[in-house]
């Protein structure tokens, strides 16, 4: 890394943050102009994009794709959900819960903090073992973590609802909270990637051997990113249940894993701008398809798409992006002002990591 890159002047930080922040604000503010159902979709878009940012903090900076991040979203969602459910009702619906869970409930902000805390702790524990792995082994091991999380959440009635859904969660995530949540995640992700820790991890992503050679402790840097990423994911899970109002295990499993991964890949896994663009773009595509299934009038032409086609389209878009534009729509770069292209911004195409 040359010195010029490592000491970005404040102006460039602002430019790089401007894109993600502006996009968030546009989606957040625009939602007030639409019907309730479209508003809900836009708020879901904000929260889902925040999950993608959480995934990006680890996968984008380390170059290791995690298939297990929805585990941390799930833990955050279930922790916030079960602790937000009113205690008297909890005692009758889920009598098997541990006493400290059953007899207490938390306010909105506290429950979000709890999600972030537990997501981060869980990721720290898991990461201690897993961040030694990379490439295929890491992909499969993180997938296994997702399987374990689901299995435990679904069957351990002392900590959660088991196979049932958690009902009666206060729906505090509206326009304001969804927008703020995404902005917070963007801020955390950017602060991390601009920090010495983030820069060291990105160096190890680009060339693991060289990074080790200049004394970077790859394991430690990965673990920091993994725990931070899990914490962001847990936070977004908590925000998510306050949007949904109820949650069951299958809502935080394979489909959400696929959706968030598709968003990150479509936008471009190497940059925060890519994570946000991918999240918003795929969400809007999803909403458009969803509306299209109900019948939609586009420039005077009535289009009715066959039902439940949105997953098919998203999977196709994801596959095509991998084939045609493997670095994603943004090309894996942060947003820049026109005319400020620097040669050093380009990397060689993704190389298999050690």
């Amino acid at each position, binding site marked *: 890394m040359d010195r010029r890159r490592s000491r970005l002047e404040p102006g460039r930080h602002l430019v790089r943050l401007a894109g993600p922040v502006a996009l968030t604000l546009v989606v957040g503010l625009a939602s007030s102009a639409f019907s309730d159902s479209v508003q809900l979709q836009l708020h879901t878009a904000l929260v889902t994009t925040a999950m993608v940012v959480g995934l990006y903090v680890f996968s984008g900076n380390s*170059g*290791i*794709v995690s*298939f297990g991040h929805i585990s941390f979203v799930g833990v955050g969602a279930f922790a916030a959900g079960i602790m937000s459910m009113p205690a008297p009702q909890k005692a009758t619906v889920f009598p098997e819960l541990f006493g400290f869970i059953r007899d207490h409930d938390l306010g909105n902000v506290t429950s979000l903090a709890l999600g972030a805390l537990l997501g981060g702790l869980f990721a720290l524990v898991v990461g201690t*073992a*897993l961040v*030694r*792995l990379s*490439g*295929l*082994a890491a*992909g*499969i*091991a993180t997938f*296994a*973590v997702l*399987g*374990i999380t689901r*299995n*435990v959440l679904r*069957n351990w009635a002392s900590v959660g609802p088991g196979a049932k859904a958690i009902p009666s969660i206060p729906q505090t995530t509206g326009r304001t909270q969804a927008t703020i949540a995404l902005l917070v995640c963007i801020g955390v992700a950017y602060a991390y990637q601009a920090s010495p820790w983030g820069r060291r991890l990105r160096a190890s992503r680009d060339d693991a051997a060289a990074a080790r050679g200049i004394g970077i402790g790859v394991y430690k840097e990965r673990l920091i990113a993994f725990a931070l990423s899990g914490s962001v994911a847990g936070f977004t899970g908590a925000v998510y249940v306050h949007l949904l109002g109820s949650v069951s295990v299958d809502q935080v499993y394979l489909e959400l894993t*696929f959706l968030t*991964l*598709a968003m990150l*890949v479509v936008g471009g896994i190497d940059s925060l701008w890519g994570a946000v663009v991918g999240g918003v773009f795929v969400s809007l595509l999803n909403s458009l398809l969803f509306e299209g299934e109900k019948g939609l009038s586009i420039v005077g032409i009535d289009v009715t798409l*066959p*039902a*439940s*086609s949105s*997953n*098919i389209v998203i*999977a*196709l878009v*994801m*596959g095509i992006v*991998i*084939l045609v534009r*493997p670095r994603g729509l943004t090309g894996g770069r942060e947003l820049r002002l026109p005319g400020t292209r620097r040669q050093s911004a380009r990397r060689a195409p*993704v*190389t*298999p*990591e050690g």
Partner: protein
Amino acid sequence: MKYVQYLIDAVALGSLYALVALGIGLIFGVMRIVNLAHGELLMAGGYTLYETDGWPAIVRVLTALAVVIVVALLMERLALRPLRHASPTTTLVMTFAVSFLLRSIAQKRWSAQGKSMNLFTDLNRAFTIGELRIKYLTIAAVVVGAVLLGAVTVFLDRTDLGLQMRAAASDVRIAQALGVRTNHVVVGAFVIAGILATAALVLFAPQRPVVTPDFGLQIAILALVGVVVGGMDKPSSATLGGFFIGFANSMVFSLLPKGQRVFLDSALYGLVIVVLLVRPSGLFQRENVTSRL
């Protein structure tokens, strides 16, 4: 005697998972790709059986075989061949997308409701030897499993294409330098994987007669666990791993009451993680692990 019965059932299930695992292991051996969409081959065959209900059984099986091979070849040609020089992570993400695409299509076409495959249901009948109750299906599973595993071994050892596959699996660059045509080898591997998947499907169909979009995923995830635990590098170790996982799963189901086996999945996934951590060099990190076709 009860335990002998359990053993027999476990061997039968182990043979089925061995077939699926060999398919996954063969693709990994030749291409260094973990194909997360392998289960969707079984799913495609399952829906073919549903759609052809009423035809003669042999025709249905052959139709399913044809559909599965076509899907396997399309997968290779459209999604994986263009990615031959991409990183293993990229191809893993791609096969995840393919898996999701195929399941979404199935969900749309046939809904999430299960559809009956209605194939060879007579195989569920059993005969008894003393206290032992042996299903015809058990015998079919063991025989078909043994024959196919033997046939693949002979193929890999004795035929030109098989030898080329083994050469490509051990060092693709040298194999290419010696004139191995990579596309032939890869297509051959996918055809064999398709045949093995269909065979497993036909043997699963009598005991799990309902096909859903997740039908193949559930089987393939477990087989993949076996492949990782056994060792992906060699088809033989992948097969053994698959057999072990099917066998162990069946034994645990027979021996433990329901309340105690709900965390079985966690134990299996935990095993995967431990193996990946403790024996990574034996599984993924061969010297030339990234050189694929």
